[in-house]
């Protein structure tokens, strides 16, 4: 809802990036909803 603290995203994003690389994904498109 636009109120997530930016720093709170770092850990989840880093873990997510690890999973993406494990699956052979090298680029992503991000869109707001």
């Amino acid at each position: 809802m636009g109120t997530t603290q930016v720093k709170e995203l770092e850990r989840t994003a880093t873990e997510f990036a690890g999973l993406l690389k494990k699956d052979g994904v090298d680029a992503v498109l991000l869109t707001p909803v």
Partner: protein
Amino acid sequence: VGALGGYLEAAGVATTQISLIREHTEAISPPRALWVSFMLGRPFGVPNDARFQERVLRAALGLLEAPQGPVLQDPEDAPAAMSDVAEGQVCPVSFAHELDEADLRALFVREVEALGPWYGLARNRRGRSAVGLSAGSIDESAALVAAFVKGEHVSPPEGLTLCQTLKLACEDVRAYYYRAAAARPGDPDAKAIDQWFWRETAAGGVFLAFQKLSAASDEQSVRRLAATSIVPRSVLHDQAKA
């Protein structure tokens, strides 16, 4: 989204993204972003127009070819602004204009009721509801928005801030109107529905009043909401010209 892009990129995954709020994207400066002037909730623009959406998608993916960021690109072929001439009436329920604020709020409440059958039709066709983010009924969301515009105290439910409460109520009201309008005979396109909502409904007038009030709020988060989430930039631009 911008911050997420930065973290993913730092972890070795290239990112590109759609930006709906240019000010946020400029502040966060993600690696690559395509700024589009579409309304919130429509990152690919015009609904049900696959060709248009593909152009947006290709433009966003094309940014991955940039050797390095940050890149913030404006699309060359964004849809026309709201200043285009409306074609015909969009919804079989029509409402008066140029009312004072008290009349506007009363009309808004009646308008929500009058659109009920059209919204019901849309919900039955799709098999799901577009309303419910706020966890209240559409009547409750409309009443909350009307109360805020009237200057009454709004108490957020437990677990939500005032800003979140107002935002979710507005989103529910807008979704309700757009779904109801789309259910009318003649299959109106997205632009026609936009024009109807902002130019012909009491809700559009209430949202404009809401935007003005929330921009002057004591709460910073509510002021930010006013700046980014209530009235599309193109509508504010048209209002300023009028």
